[in-house]
């Protein structure tokens, strides 16, 4: 447990040294400005979208950037010869990325509360946030481990956004008819966004929530076990 905390502390320190923590805070400040400029009604629509963006696309990029910066320094190899398991190393990276996401989501929550007096079930939000963030961290790792550089990973993220995120956004703005929503649930992005939308709007479609939770949990576990864990070990050996 002590080593796990030490790993998380080290990761956070490392992310701070790359100024990734400062960038998360800067993003949060931009969201505050957005909420200052929009109405309470619009804030209810925008808030879940911003939370979703922070817990998915931004998180995937964060995981990728952190991974490639670490690869440049060869520190992964050094971590692999410490008396800690690969699972602990990966978990510490996911938790520390989650902390950064929590910071921006907390700023979003505080903004909509203090500016528009909108509150929601924060425990449920935290649960959904963890689920969405862990799944997208696993997706971020997967893309990073298949990519050869941060540039190639960036291209894969763009492809991911076009295939999986755009349909969800088009559904949100009614460009795609709502009858096709179940098809969109296969997208991790849409599953995550529907969770945030439900908790912010206070309209709970439990079938959809249950499906999203199970789907995201299964996807995160499958990616971590069959893709991220073996490929991370192999990449670490190469240095």
């Amino acid at each position, binding site marked *: 447990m002590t080593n796990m905390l030490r790993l998380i502390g080290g990761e956070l320190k490392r992310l701070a*040294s790359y100024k990734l923590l400062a960038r998360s805070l800067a993003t949060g400040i931009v969201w505050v400005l957005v909420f200052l400029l929009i109405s309470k009604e619009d804030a209810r629509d925008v808030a879940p979208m911003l939370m979703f963006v922070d817990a998915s696309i931004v998180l995937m990029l964060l995981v990728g950037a952190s991974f490639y910066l670490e690869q440049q320094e060869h520190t992964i190899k050094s971590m692999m010869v410490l008396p800690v398991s690969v699972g602990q190393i990966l978990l510490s990276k996911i938790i520390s990325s989650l902390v950064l996401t929590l910071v921006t989501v907390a700023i979003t929550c505080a903004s909509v509360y203090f500016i528009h007096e909108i509150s929601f079930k924060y425990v449920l939000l935290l649960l959904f946030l963890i689920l969405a963030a862990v799944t997208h961290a696993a997706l971020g790792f997967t893309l990073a481990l298949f990519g050869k550089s941060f540039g190639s990973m960036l291209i894969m993220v763009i492809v991911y956004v076009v295939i999986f995120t755009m349909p969800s956004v088009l559904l949100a703005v009614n460009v795609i008819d709502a009858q096709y929503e179940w098809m969109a649930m296969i997208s991790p992005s849409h599953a995550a966004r529907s969770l945030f939308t439900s908790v912010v709007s206070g309209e709970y479609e439990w079938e959809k929530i249950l499906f999203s939770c199970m789907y995201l949990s299964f996807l995160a576990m499958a990616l971590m076990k069959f893709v991220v864990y073996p490929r991370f070990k192999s990449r670490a050996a190469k240095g």
Partner: protein
Amino acid sequence: MSHAFSVQNLSYRYPKAKRDTLREITFSVEEGEIFGFLGPSGVGKSTTQKVLIKLLEGYSGEIRYFGRNLQSMGKSYYEEVGVGFEMPIHFSRMTALENLKYFSGFYKNRINFQELMERVGLWEHKDVQVGNYSKGMKARLNFVRAMLNNPRVLFLDEPTAGIDPRNARTLKDIISEYRAQGGTVFLTTHLMSDVDELCDRVVFVVDGNLTDISTPRDLRIAYGKREVKVEYREDDALASAVFPLAGIGDNEEFHTLLRSKDIETIHSGETSMEDIFIKVTGAQLP
């Protein structure tokens, strides 16, 4: 004395590779010795080291670490071994002290690294970000990092590469002292002067296979010429003569030369480790 490592018929093939990088290699490393694992680039030295430090799995053959099957050992293995990589492996935006404090915190058994940093000349630069260190300073820091847990076995990959002669001397002294205190070293290097000074036994890796294990001294004798070359002054010019080493004590011509001429040098026909490296591996040193 026990085997620190006993390796039997070790083979390893990288995924997607068409042939094995290591082909049924067998060797043992004795406790308390400095074992030189030598060879040109790309022949399997690093692969062997990566297998021994458990970075690579999926090998065939058997590896025993102090009698225990290496595969059955968990993360506690890293409490006992120290690994000095050739490349820099520190967080470049953290200071040397922050790096060492961080890595040291993971071990149950820790050394007082201040003393070691002072010896390798890094203590006064402890608050400098590692990214601002020179190549030699990073290499010295790698060495300190490898020693943090006072390891039972130390893996070193080119430990003196890029280090100035004075600091290289210090590092070699520390390695010798470590051995004298019972530590075991698995050394991979291209620097044959390091091999000559440090190694108790060496083996060459040639295309995934091993040559016979020997001592540097025995290799120099085996690959050298059994002769003595004498250089002397004669009529203001440099002259030389070569005598067979066998029966040199009774060689009257040799003794007459020593008595009558102004001798400048006498050399036995031992060859250098560099020449042996080239002869055995067929490769040029970088």
